[in-house]
């Protein structure tokens, strides 16, 4: 897989027996010898360590925090200016049609904004920021930093053991910590539905740090396979699957991420790409919505499964966008889009799997309650 980029932890993954697969242009570990199912359960029971260095890390700097925040608000429908120092938010880049170009995390570090974007979109995101921000805002992609995530109920004890300041952090806080002798940027967040941290560290220190963390009781390396089933059970969107350029924040059920100040009537309403479409969706509703789906039987309903309003004949009313087996749920779970009239929790619909229509119910998300430290 020499044609794929490698993260700073590549050789360690291979040494640990990972199965490497291409993902977003990188060779990434999809699973270790433990296997996807056990890795998933281990993360929910103890702590899983993920290499997410393929994701893009970007710093935006400018003459002041206000300048940086207001400039960034022209690209995202989020309240950036209101973000306190040391806090992080989930965000979306929108396009002129009100669709989602990528989802991201952004954190305030003093007067700077630290942005983490998806690997598959990072080149476009950096170009979007360079083109869409005024000259006084510098856009610096941090290609010399690795990003790892430590997730699960044991994560806090492991990190606090290294730096007591971590004990003060709550969900979506960011702080500079010293872990195993390495200076890191930590956020108390992740994408598994569990308490945990995402840790940005100098690329040349990443392997030493990760090896130290792996010596802690209950910490195991976890691959992309379990990362996917963990985020699915947590009801979190995977860009390019559950959200994309053709889906907007209201359809996607991400209205919570658009703070009131950016909505109609807010002090800084609109002013982001596609604002007219997005604000119209808030006001007048949408034709389809992202929902959780619980198949009645044991057969997984995967991405692409067509959803119908009747067991026989009837009309197609939606499509599965993510689906598989939920190890914690101990059954199949999925997400997809259905027409708004079928989006109510408890609605019985049918998914066509191998030519047979199988019963599936619209279900509340997340499938597994979040375990964040609020």
């Amino acid at each position: 897989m020499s044609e794929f980029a490698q993260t700073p932890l590549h050789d360690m993954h291979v040494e640990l027996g990972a199965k490497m697969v291409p993902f977003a242009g990188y060779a990434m570990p999809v699973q270790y010898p433990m296997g996807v199912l056990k890795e998933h359960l281990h993360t929910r029971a103890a702590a899983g360590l993920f290499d997410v260095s393929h994701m893009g890390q970007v710093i935006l700097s400018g003459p002041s925090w206000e300048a940086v925040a207001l400039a960034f608000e022209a690209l995202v429908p989020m309240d950036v200016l209101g973000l306190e120092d040391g806090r992080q938010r989930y965000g979306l880049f929108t396009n002129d049609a009100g669709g989602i170009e990528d989802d991201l995390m952004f954190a305030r570090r003093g007067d700077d904004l630290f942005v983490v974007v998806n690997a598959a979109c990072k080149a476009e995101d950096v170009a979007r920021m360079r083109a869409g921000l005024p000259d006084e805002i510098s856009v610096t992609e941090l290609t010399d930093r690795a990003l790892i995530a430590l997730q699960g109920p044991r994560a806090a004890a492991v990190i606090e053991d290294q730096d007591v300041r971590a004990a003060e952090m709550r969900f979506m806080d960011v702080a500079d910590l010293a872990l195993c002798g390495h200076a890191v940027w930590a956020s108390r967040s992740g994408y598994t539905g569990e308490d945990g941290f995402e840790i940005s560290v100098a690329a040349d220190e990443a392997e030493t740090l990760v090896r130290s963390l792996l010596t802690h009781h209950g910490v195991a390396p976890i691959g992309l396979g379990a990362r996917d089933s963990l985020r699915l059970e947590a009801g979190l969107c995977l860009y390019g699957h559950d959200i994309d350029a053709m889906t907007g924040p209201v359809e996607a059920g991400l209205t919570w991420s658009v703070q009131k100040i950016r909505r109609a009537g807010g002090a800084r309403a609109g002013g982001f790409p596609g604002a007219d479409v997005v604000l119209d969706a808030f006001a007048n509703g949408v034709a389809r919505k992202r929902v959780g789906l619980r198949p009645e039987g044991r057969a997984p309903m995967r991405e692409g499964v067509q959803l119908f309003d009747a067991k026989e004949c009837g009309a197609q009313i939606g499509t599965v966008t993510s689906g598989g087996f939920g190890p914690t749920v101990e059954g199949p779970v999925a997400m997809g889009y259905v027409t708004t009239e079928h989006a109510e929790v408890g609605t019985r619909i049918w998914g066509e799997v191998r030519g047979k229509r199988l019963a599936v119910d619209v279900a509340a998300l997340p499938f597994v309650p979040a375990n964040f430290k609020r």
Partner: protein
Amino acid sequence: MKFTEEHEWLREEDGLMVVGITTHAAEQLGDVVFVELPDDGITVSKDEEVVVIESVKAASDILAPVDGEIVEVNTALTDNPGMVNEDPQGEAWFFKMSVSDASQMDEFMDEAGYKKFIA
């Protein structure tokens, strides 16, 4: 025991052919989470899809290795698909079938041949 290029094993037992997937195939599939078995009593042709297996990664089919009739299916797998990973060449057999044309068995590999095939 005989082996097919589709990574199935066949073991003769009381005049019937017991069919499962190899340890190698189970490892490649990853954790099996769903097994859909055929009805017993159905007549099948060689290479017909008779079993659906879904792992955490993907769905795949098991094909009938020869022409014949499905005489018995291992319903324990429906409730406990993980057996396929735990004991693929033992307890986790999928079905037993009668063989219409024994000459179809001739093309299958022995264990040494299969080991070479997957090497």
